């Protein structure tokens, strides 16, 4: 066990920190509420791209730096520490790109990877449907081949960045005569295609982070299939396995939340109340535990071990911690908790509200708490799966836990 950084890592950290200090916009970018604010975010992505920081994890042949996981973690930590802008193309850089590297043809890689890297193309994800949330394999959006074109009909929901997406990577049903996992295809669709309608979903925190996307006879070249027809379930599992990377450095973000919580505690004048102190300490403990486990996992992956179902432990840990951080803030605010105004010196209550509601969604998206516990029980502890009901059930439901491991609702 050696927790000191290598000289290279130390140099990289200092480089990144200096570069961010020089380049992160002095004024935080305005919240991304509509396409009006989009150019400033695209400009920031361009800045990152030009400095070679757009996707350091990508192989050099695709424009990345071949950075190992430790290096990626350092970048993520510094990025969070400096409070740099939210990335707007994480679904492209983190999911679509890496999936193409594994399952795409040379031509497909050449077609899409450069636009992802430069952020000229923003990507969104079309997995969940109204009746396919935890049960992702139940998707019904259909793609029917006519000559060399798929005709796509159906609806996706919980599509992050759906409002701004230039491209969407989708799961579509190409075969209804086989068990439900076996008739799914992974398809790339140009969001400017005729027949696509995007409707924003306003969240209960009044943000519009998600969208519904409707497909009405949308024509898609058959060449946009990635990984083979009816082979989309396997491709999707690859995609979801990349979601693991998104947690890098997030303990730094939670530490910022905890700092804000401390601010609320002090503004309410209860920093000497042992009950409040105990709660703050308990949350701090959890984030430290989270940090140490993150480092353990980094080392494990670096040593060549696969990321297994332990990813569900990670998700369950941070999502419940995040919810509790913000719930504790609401508790401490007490009678001020409802006031969506700057009535408490130094505390941005409206921002706390936004995060509070979003933190509660963390126990839902990317596999609900209940789904995570199933995965942990069955795949970490090896407990028996639930017996299949006697009633008729779509084939293939045995792997429900696995199926829902990383769904986006």
């Amino acid at each position, binding site marked *: 066990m050696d927790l000191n950084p290598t000289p290279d890592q130390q140099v990289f950290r200092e480089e990144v920190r200096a570069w961010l200090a020089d380049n992160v916009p002095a004024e935080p970018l305005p919240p991304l509420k509509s396409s009006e604010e989009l150019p400033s975010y695209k400009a920031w992505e361009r800045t990152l791209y030009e400095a070679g920081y757009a996707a350091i994890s990508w192989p050099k042949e695709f424009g990345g730096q071949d950075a190992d996981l430790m290096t990626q973690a350092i970048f993520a930590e510094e990025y969070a520490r400096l409070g740099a802008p939210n990335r707007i193309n994480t679904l492209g850089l983190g999911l679509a790109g890496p999936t193409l590297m594994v399952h795409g043809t040379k031509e497909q890689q050449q077609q899409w990877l450069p636009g992802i890297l430069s952020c000229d193309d923003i990507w969104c994800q079309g997995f969940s449907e109204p009746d396919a949330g*935890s*049960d992702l394999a139940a998707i019904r959006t259909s793609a029917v081949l006519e000559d060399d074109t798929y005709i796509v009909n159906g609806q996706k929901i919980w599509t992050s960045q759906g409002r701004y997406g230039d491209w969407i990577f989708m799961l579509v049903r190409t075969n209804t005569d086989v068990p439900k996992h076996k008739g799914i295809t992974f398809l790339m669709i140009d969001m400017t295609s005729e027949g696509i309608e995007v409707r924003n979903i306003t969240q209960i925190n009044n943000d519009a982070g998600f969208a519904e996307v409707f497909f009405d006879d949308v024509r898609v070249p058959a060449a946009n299939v990635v990984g083979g027809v009816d082979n989309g379930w396997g491709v999707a599992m690859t995609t979801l396995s990349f979601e693991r990377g998104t947690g890098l450095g997030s303990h730094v973000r939670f530490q910022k939340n905890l700092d804000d919580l401390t601010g609320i505690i002090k503004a309410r004048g209860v920093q000497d109340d042992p009950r409040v102190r105990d709660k703050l300490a308990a949350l701090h403990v959890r984030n430290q535990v989270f940090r140490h486990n993150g480092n353990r996992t980094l080392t494990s992956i670096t040593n060549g071990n696969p990321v297994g179902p332990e990813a569900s432990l990670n998700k369950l840990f941070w999502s419940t911690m995040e919810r509790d951080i913000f719930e504790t803030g609401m508790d401490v605010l007490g009678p001020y*908790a409802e*006031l969506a*105004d700057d*009535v408490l010196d130094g505390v941005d209550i409206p921002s706390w509200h936004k995060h509070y509601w979003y933190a509660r969604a963390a126990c839902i998206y990317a596999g*609900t708490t*209940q789904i995570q516990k199933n995965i942990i029980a069955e795949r970490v502890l090896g407990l028996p799966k639930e017996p299949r009901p006697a009633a008729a*059930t779509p084939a293939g439901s045995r792997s429900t836990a696995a199926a829902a491991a990383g769904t986006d609702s």
Partner: protein
Amino acid sequence: MYFDFTDDAKDLAAGAREFLTGEYTPDYVRSVWDADGPRDPSKWTHLAETGFVGVGVAEDFGGLGMGDVEMSLLLEEAGRANLTEPLLETGAVVAPTIADYGSEATKKEWLPRIASGEAIVTVRLGDAPVAVDADIADGLLLEEDGALHLVGADSFTASQVDSLDLGRRVFTVEAITSSDTLLTDDADAYARTFDRAAVATAAWLNGTGQQVLEMSVAYVKEREQFGRPVGSFQAVKHLLAETVLQVETSRAATWYAAYAVQHDLADRTEAASVAKSFASDAERLANTNSLQAHAGIGFTWEHDLHLWLKRGKALEGAYGTASWHRDRIASLLLDVDQS
């Protein structure tokens, strides 16, 4: 020992449920959310005409002559319906406080107007930073130096603050008190009024909790995943079983506290703190678990669930948080000489 409501009270509550769910539909509540100014004043008059505002006002003054106990049933229904009128403040707190502590003249001046819906009186007690509907209120009940004052509209100013519940219009207030505005300097009057407000809020929260629980039960029965209703999965079942355990048991504690307030029993303060601390925590659990049961759809502005979730969050902290009330109970248990 008879721990149940009279048939009259049950009829009143049944009528209230019918009336409130008819009048205060989610669509109506959304129209309040979306409006900039005060609500249509006829809604309050209409509510008063049913008798609900004057439940605790003597029949001589135009009320129904009931008390805190019956009002607590009514407030549950208000919580279920997500009522956007100041029934809690004017009907459940101010009216009985005037009845209990006001001079005859004050009673005559205010109670008939309250019961009939002519007057709205709002409240600010304890460490509450705001009072609801203060801009349209004809009066303000507040505490100063341990005494209760009833201040007319000409003697206080109100300045609006946003609430996370857009159905609540809340205001910071500045009032000028004097011997003319004094309602009572009875040392226990303020304490009882605070207890009354806490218990009324507990009753409301119990209604909120029941409502979001019932919405969740209905949803998980209908929503299917993996070829079966999600409500048939034990994980979902137990989530909602844990919720009903807290929400349902909270009700009797609130009813008892309402009885203790009404009859000013020796354990009134303890009972009020038991009720509010438990109701706040029960609603919080219902709030958390109902969103979890609804999952993604409950997280959309379009779905009605959040109308109740936000009211619940606003009221959890009103008239003492759960931990504030537990602190008060601890003092009764550990600091007071127990005979």
